[in-house]
């Protein structure tokens, strides 16, 4: 999740599930007995292909049915308050923002024609594309942009990205003409485009009412029941030529992953998000189904508090990083659906520092560092873990085993997600967490600066902070990236995170669904990009 600092912890909690292959099960013909209950019941629901009218190939039109992980009675269609996976899926399809992330995490202009800063990035000028239409037929104008930003930053009822607009002078926003707005900031804001690309910044018309949501996204609102499902229909005046291809989009909530997989295998949905690792083989084995395996920037770090014993000694932190056999951890905790990390986040940032050598397991060096730090007789630590994300507990268990070799005894303290994010969250000495794809500056603002909301390692390195502050006001990309590379090197050398790997997102879909492609944003199903999809019968 590139933008959402509050991903849905609940949706990630996955109940134990079966791992057997349905195909191996016998199918006795007890049907007659079972049928007695529902005599005359129709067999298999027909794919409800409405409209379209294209008799030749059926490549345009039809209804796409998608099962998305999570959802609850809390579900909302509010453009600026999405928290759960199902909310995010819906928001992506109802609304378009000024910018957006491409599947490779580069930024594209969406509703905006251009978004340009002044010399010190304190004044940004947004120019909208011409002829854009909201779902109700009204034009997308400068007023809508101002209204949207005011709504997000409303101090009485802030949107989920409000904090990232903290330096916006919301009363100073100026409409230059119908399609142009000037946005003044009280401090330089060099990575504003990233914020505009997030799903929580969808442009809405003046007078927007989340109960009857109107946006400029590829689909418009038709039906919605929180905790259950939604039905959207094609926005005929969508700005992208020829998109969306399908007429209707139905998004169904699936809190239970077994039900989600069953619905896909049984043909009741055409695609599902977040296939559990244990079910990947089941889907692969089915001739009608395919998986979408996407590398992402989502990371599941171990967090060491740099202000607490024993981690206040940077030698201990380095030793712990050297204890980890990253390949093994990816293989065991993520069933191989992930890639190795190098104790740095933001792997898709153009500034990402590739020059630093990949850290590998080195037990003797780790032992030596621990001995130098005064722990030659071994060390005992408590690791706080929990089902905060698939793979977290597995990673903790693997770490416990790997640490033994270095004479470190790790005691696991396993909590429920609610307890983990309870009163002691951000206070654990040695714990875990998970974070979505984000570029370096944005992540630093969330998790590593002293004033960050989630500085779980209590990282407070003067030299590093100075670099970040300098980067924040450096408008030139190359210049800024050089500074950020230096900051990354510092975190690589003495930071409090063990970034052992990045998690892949694996989705499943029916072969007839065309157009989905791998995306590194960390949001399933090409960032729920159903505008790209065609259904080929």
């Amino acid at each position, binding site marked *: 999740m590139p933008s959402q600092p509050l991903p849905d912890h609940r949706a990630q909690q996955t109940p134990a599930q079966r791992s057997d292959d*349905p195909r191996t099960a016998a*199918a006795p013909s007890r049907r007659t007995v079972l049928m007695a209950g529902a005599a005359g*019941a129709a067999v*298999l629901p027909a794919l409800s292909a409405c409209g379209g009218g294209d008799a030749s190939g059926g490549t345009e039109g039809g209804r796409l049915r998608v099962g998305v992980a999570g959802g609850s*009675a809390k579900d909302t269609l509010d453009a600026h308050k999405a928290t759960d996976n199902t909310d995010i899926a819906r928001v992506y399809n109802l609304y378009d923002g000024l910018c957006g992330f491409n599947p490779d995490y580069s930024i594209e202009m969406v509703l905006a024609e251009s978004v340009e800063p002044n010399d010190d990035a304190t004044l940004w000028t947004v120019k909208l594309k011409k002829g854009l239409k909201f779902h109700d037929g009204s034009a997308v104008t400068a007023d809508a942009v101002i209204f949207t930003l005011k709504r997000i930053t409303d101090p009485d009822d802030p949107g989920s990205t409000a904090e990232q607009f903290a330096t916006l002078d919301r009363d100073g926003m100026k409409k230059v003409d119908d399609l142009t707005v000037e946005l003044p900031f009280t401090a330089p804001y060099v990575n504003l485009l990233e914020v505009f690309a997030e799903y929580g910044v969808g442009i809405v018309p003046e007078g927007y009412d989340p109960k009857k949501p109107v946006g400029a996204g590829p689909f418009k609102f038709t039906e919605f029941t929180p905790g259950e499902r939604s039905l959207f229909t094609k926005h005929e005046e969508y700005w992208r030529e020829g998109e969306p291809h399908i007429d209707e989009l139905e998004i169904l909530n699936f809190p239970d992953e077994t039900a989600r997989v069953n*619905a896909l295998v049984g043909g009741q949905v055409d695609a599902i998000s977040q296939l559990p690792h244990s079910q990947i083989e089941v889907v692969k084995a089915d001739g009608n189904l395919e998986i979408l395996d996407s590398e992402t920037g989502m990371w599941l770090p171990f967090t060491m508090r740099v202000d607490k014993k024993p981690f206040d000694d940077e030698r201990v932190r380095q030793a712990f990083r050297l204890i980890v056999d990253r390949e093994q951890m990816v293989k065991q905790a993520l069933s191989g659906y992930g890639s190795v990390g190098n104790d740095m986040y933001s792997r898709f940032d153009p500034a990402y520092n590739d020059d630093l050598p990949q850290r590998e397991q080195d037990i003797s060096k780790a032992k030596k560092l621990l001995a130098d730090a005064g722990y030659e007789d071994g060390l005992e630590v408590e690791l706080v873990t929990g089902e905060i994300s698939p793979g977290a507990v597995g990673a903790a268990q693997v770490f416990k085993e790997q640490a033994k070799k270095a004479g470190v005894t790790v005691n696991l303290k396993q909590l429920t997600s609610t*307890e983990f994010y309870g009163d002691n*969250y951000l206070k654990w000495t040695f714990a875990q967490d998970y974070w979505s794809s984000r570029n370096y500056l944005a992540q630093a603002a969330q998790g590593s600066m002293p004033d960050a909301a989630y500085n779980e390692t209590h990282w407070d390195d003067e030299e590093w902070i100075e670099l970040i502050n300098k980067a924040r006001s450096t408008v030139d990309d190359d210049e800024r990236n050089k500074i950020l590379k230096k900051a990354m090197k510092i975190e690589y050398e003495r930071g409090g995170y063990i970034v052992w790997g990045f998690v892949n997102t694996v989705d499943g879909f029916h072969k007839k669904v065309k157009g989905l492609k791998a995306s590194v944003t960390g949001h399933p199903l090409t960032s729920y990009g159903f505008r790209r999809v065609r259904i080929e019968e």
Partner: protein
Amino acid sequence: MTRLILHRLFYGLLTLFVVSLVVFLATQALPGDAAQAMLGREATPERLAALREQLHLNEPLAVQYGSWIAGIFTFDLGTSYAANMPVVEHLAPRVTASLSLMAIAALVATPIALLLGAYSAMRRDRAMDHGTSMVTLILAAIPEFAVGILLILAFATGALQLFPAVYAGRADNVLNDPSQLVLPVATLVIAVSPPIIRMMRASMIEVLESEYVQQARLKGLPERTVILRHAGPNAIGPVAQVIALQLGWLAGGVVAIEYLFRFPGIGLALMDAIDTRDIPVIQAVALLIAVVYIVVNLLADVVGLAANPKVRVSSR
């Protein structure tokens, strides 16, 4: 008999009161209070304090309990934290959906189970009787969600894709596409039937051996009349209790089944509410299940009494 019913009614209400107390205290004992659970990572001290104030979490437990109980009598079960609407409104379509599912299961299971039981009794010690006996024993031992999973494997996602694996429609019109109900109903039927079949068989055997049935036969009545007029009605009496127990179980058992089949009823609402610590909804659903259980048992008592002349007379 009226006195007896009133007597039972009184105990039913007493049980309900105890259940309400237990439900209330149990929801209070969940780790972390509702405000904490709802805010999660966003929980700053100020926001926590504000939310606790808003949810009346600072008031003494007795006061919170009192206002909850008072609300029940006016059909006001509070406001769902998660759905942000009255609990009654939030649950209404789900209750209807669950009741539909349960009613269909009950309507299917009861006659089938009674017939199978009676038939087994009449074919006592023949192959069909032994077969039924063994199958019911095995089915009774398998947990209902396992039955559900097996049915899904067999009829939805495996080689035979006859029925939908999950419910993919809306809560307010579950009868719209009956094919989606086949597997959940079948699971419930398989889960509730075995004890009814076994009880009916035992009861029927006893009745068939009784003197009045022998008498009826000796009188030369056709076997049909003997079974339908004399044996059957008398055999059902004792079974009514078991039927009631099983139907009462439905109210609770439906939770796991709904989760498995993604059926939008009270079970799914309950799981959802537990996840989001939506305490008013948890309390309402738990209480509702208890009410169904108690009412069904009360009805069973009445049926049992009505079917048994001895009790009917002696309790007067």
